């Protein structure tokens, strides 16, 4: 991995939204987060949150069921985030 960060990706800050059980677990409904990764993907964002330790590492651990939505669309871990994106963490849904 190169040490230098591509200039086009510097300063990517996203608006996180935590829903339902995850909002309770994290004690907040959302936050603004500056991404630290050279390639700010959804997966890198999840890893950055997990690095905070408990409860993040517990709730977002591999194998825990949750989805990520970027600007209201469900997104895979490979999706690259852009500055100002709304990124929501969704527990398994239980409507209907």
């Amino acid at each position, binding site marked *: 991995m190169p040490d230098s960060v591509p200039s086009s990706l510097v300063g990517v800050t996203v608006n996180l939204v935590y829903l*339902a*059980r995850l909002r309770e677990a994290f004690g907040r409904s959302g936050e603004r987060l500056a991404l630290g990764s050279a390639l700010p993907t959804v997966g890198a964002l999840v890893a950055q949150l997990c690095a905070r330790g408990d409860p993040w590492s517990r709730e977002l651990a591999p194998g825990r069921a949750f989805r990520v939505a970027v600007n209201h*669309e469900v997104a895979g871990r490979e999706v690259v985030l852009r500055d100002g994106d709304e990124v929501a963490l969704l527990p398994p849904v239980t409507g209907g």
Partner: protein
Amino acid sequence: MPVRITEDDFDAGREIAALRGIDRRVGAVASFIGTVRDVNDEAQVLAMTLEHYPGMTEKALEAIVEEARGRFDILDALVIHRVGDLKPTDQIVLVAVTSAHRGEAFDACRFIMDYLKTRAPFWKREQTPAGARWVDARASDDEAAARWKP
């Protein structure tokens, strides 16, 4: 608007009559109403709060209705889903579909409900005698949605 999120109760008869309107092509109307039970996972349910993700919920439901239109030969469809505080016997959701013949109406109605259960961002929180708890997703819901895979 084929999709509505509301804290208010709905009158299914009135909603279905409005959906049918004066469309003379309609020969079948299928509908489903989901309601709050007083027992879930062997615990008494005293009350329920339904939470959603405003903005995404509407888009997700509209996408499900669009997919139903693409898969089934239907004339119109309606989804009403309530949010907020509910109690046992309250109505939660109404799905209604019109078509020329019953098969397409039945199938589209069930398809919309199966996809709603697994794709629309709603979450139920139950009040039980032991306290409040988030309802767990069911594997059977995923299996029901998977039946519709092309």
